């Protein structure tokens, strides 16, 4: 399509996930191309978080297949998946509140050993988020909500991921801050990191994404290029404030 289609980073096939007897995902399938931003939008309880947890190995599908760069990673352990190059920024900015900004970032580089290249990554994170550099020695817990979200994303970048999974980064943030963070996400993406973005804020998400999927109570009912979804009457009615 627009030069981004150089093969699939992530491929989900017929994913079924249960919590006990409750089925949260009903055989969903989707994919992320290399270099793309793909968004998964849906209301509360649609199964967005569940999808991301399954991709990062915290939840097991039965049945279902998760492929990363062509390899089946459905049964790979979570920490191994991080080493493969998928990193998950969980819902609700779960940073280490007792650690400083710097220590949080170092924690993000846990799987890496080369001190010099870790330092380089940290500089890159500061390029994206200059605010973090100003607050290098501040405790994570004392950061503002927006700064915490930046730290959570920065920390994830420290593992040098090929695919970034983001769970509702806009949650609880002022629109202007969401805009700032989403712009940064585009920069990160421009440097070659593919992004799977889960959002309730459909307008914002679709405005930076290449393609989108709409998840409704465990089913993917609508999908397509982000621009088309923005004008899709059903999406407009249900997720874009109806106007």
């Amino acid at each position: 399509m627009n030069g981004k289609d150089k093969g699939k980073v992530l491929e989900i096939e017929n994913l079924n996930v249960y919590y006990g007897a409750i089925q949260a995902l009903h055989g969903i399938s989707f994919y992320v191309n290399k270099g793309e931003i793909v968004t998964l939008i849906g209301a509360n309880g649609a199964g967005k978080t569940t999808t991301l947890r399954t991709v990062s190995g915290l939840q097991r599908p039965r049945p279902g297949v998760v492929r990363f760069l062509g390899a089946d990673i459905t049964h790979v352990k979570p920490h191994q998946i991080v080493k493969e190059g998928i990193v998950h920024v969980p819902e609700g900015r779960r940073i280490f509140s007792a650690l400083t900004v710097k220590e949080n970032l170092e924690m993000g580089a846990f799987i890496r050993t080369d001190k010099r290249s870790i330092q380089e990554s940290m500089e890159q994170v500061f390029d994206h988020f200059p605010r973090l550099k100003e607050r290098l020695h501040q405790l994570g817990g004392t950061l503002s909500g927006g700064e915490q979200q930046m730290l959570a994303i920065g920390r994830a970048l420290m593992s040098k991921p090929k695919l970034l999974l983001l769970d509702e980064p806009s949650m609880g943030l002022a629109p202007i801050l969401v805009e700032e963070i989403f712009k940064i996400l585009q920069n990160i993406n421009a440097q070659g990191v593919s992004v799977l973005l889960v959002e309730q804020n459909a307008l914002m998400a679709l405005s930076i994404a290449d393609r989108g999927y709409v998840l409704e109570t465990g089913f993917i009912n609508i999908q397509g290029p982000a621009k088309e979804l923005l004008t899709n009457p059903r999406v407009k009615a249900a997720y874009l404030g109806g106007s």
Partner: protein
Amino acid sequence: MENRHFWQSEVMNFGWLAGILVVLLALVGMVVSFSQRGFISGVMSEGQLLIFLTVALIGFVAGKKMERQSVLKVALWGGIIGFVAGLSLIVLVLLTGIKPLNLRSMFLNASPQLVKVLTFGKGQGAGFLYLLLLNILSGIFGGLAAVIPGIWGSGLANSALITILIGLLTDIWKTFLPRGVAKFFFANKGFNVTGFLITFFFILAFLLFWSLYGARIKVSYGNVASRQPKKVKITWWVISLVVLLLLPRLVGSYLSEVLDLVGIYIIMGLGLNIVVGFAGLLDLGYVAFFAIGAYTMGVFTSPELGLFHLTFWETLPLSILFAVLAGVLLGIPVLGMRGDYLAIVTMGFGEIIRLLVLSDALKPILGGAQGLVGIARPTVGHIVVKNPPQFYYLILAGIFIAWYVASALKDSKLGRAWMALREDEDVAQAMGINLVSIKLLAFATGAALSGLSGAIFAAKLNSMVPHSFTILISIYVLSLIIVGGVGSLPGVVVGALALIGTPELLREFAEYRMMIYGAVLVGMMLYKPEGLWPEPARRRELHGEEGKSAVTASTAPVQMSEEA
């Protein structure tokens, strides 16, 4: 507020609280049994001190609550609180005097002895007056200590507490002070009057001096320390090492015995601190590994069983090995558990081990209820390690090893992984941390240190019974970690000295050990939840404001030196 009845007013709430507490202390028998020892010889026994200390404490808490009130009003409040407490005790004494009531059939400790202690042996007239007066003074003292600003208030409170501590530990000072000096300060039981007054005012003077010049001294020390950090650090190490090596000579055999016990708990504490403090896994069955280490030592060296005839040093690695295996064995089934579930399962594990060593079926290999005798003594060259000062050095070596292991792990990558696990299991996985392996490693290293401690314990006792390995040990170790400061290595030492050492020295406290532990733990959680010697990161976490000051630290050299 004013239209409430006086008897329901806030000051009266504190008064009733004080009254109930002191009556309770009297009825559980603490007052009488503490009175066997004098605090100030001929003036006040430790039992009486307990009452006044309690009243002063309530006065203090009340004073803190009304910080912006006038000093006079606070003094009045303190006085009222003391008055109510004193009155409650007088009523108690009068009640014990009513024959038909027969209070003693319900409260065994409402004895003539108690009456004698409460009335200072002066009979009901003068005794009551005395009791009432001292209670009132204690209440006023506590209240004033809380509200008088700056060094005078806190200085009064601190010098009173330090003086009390010195008085309680009279026996220690006597063992190594020159006889003449000891005679000057201390009577047969506790302080004499001059000794008490001199000690109290000396400490007060010192605290005043420190408040005036302390900051300056700290800064100049900080300057030296920052200019030559290595030298200062080495000096401290050398000084502590020399003191540690000379300690058994200084304190004699009895106190060496106490130190040995404290040391055995320190090794265990350093181990459990890895599991609970570093990795955040609440383990209540920690005694199991201690028992396994001890029993390995017993089974492999005891001639009574006659199964093996290894020496102490040959068995020591086995003790650690078996403890580690048990640690992993326990770790596997509890991998998915956290918090209270984990605590209960590990507790069960501890009991299982205890029941196994107790069982008749395993008697031929484990000795059954009678336990094991003739456990090997360690030998170093030609010396057989057997008396407390000799064991002290062995235990000290064990502490050094445990300390080294714990501090190396803490600063390692594994230590950071444990920290992540403790804070947030999901996020830890998202950082690429293998939870299974780091959990098992935490259990294994914790168990190894406990096994080491148990092996030394067995060799020291020479014989042992299953009864030594109850869940109480797990609770003691956990408590000392909490009191010292979760995750802090120096905290383990401080906690062990406070919770294991002090009760050994204050024998009459032993009976009320659990009660005092409970009170101390509740108090700690309320007023100093980070512990006596907290880990810097925890302190930051619990006192958010201090965290911010770390940012400005570069512009504030005084704060820097405090951190150092």
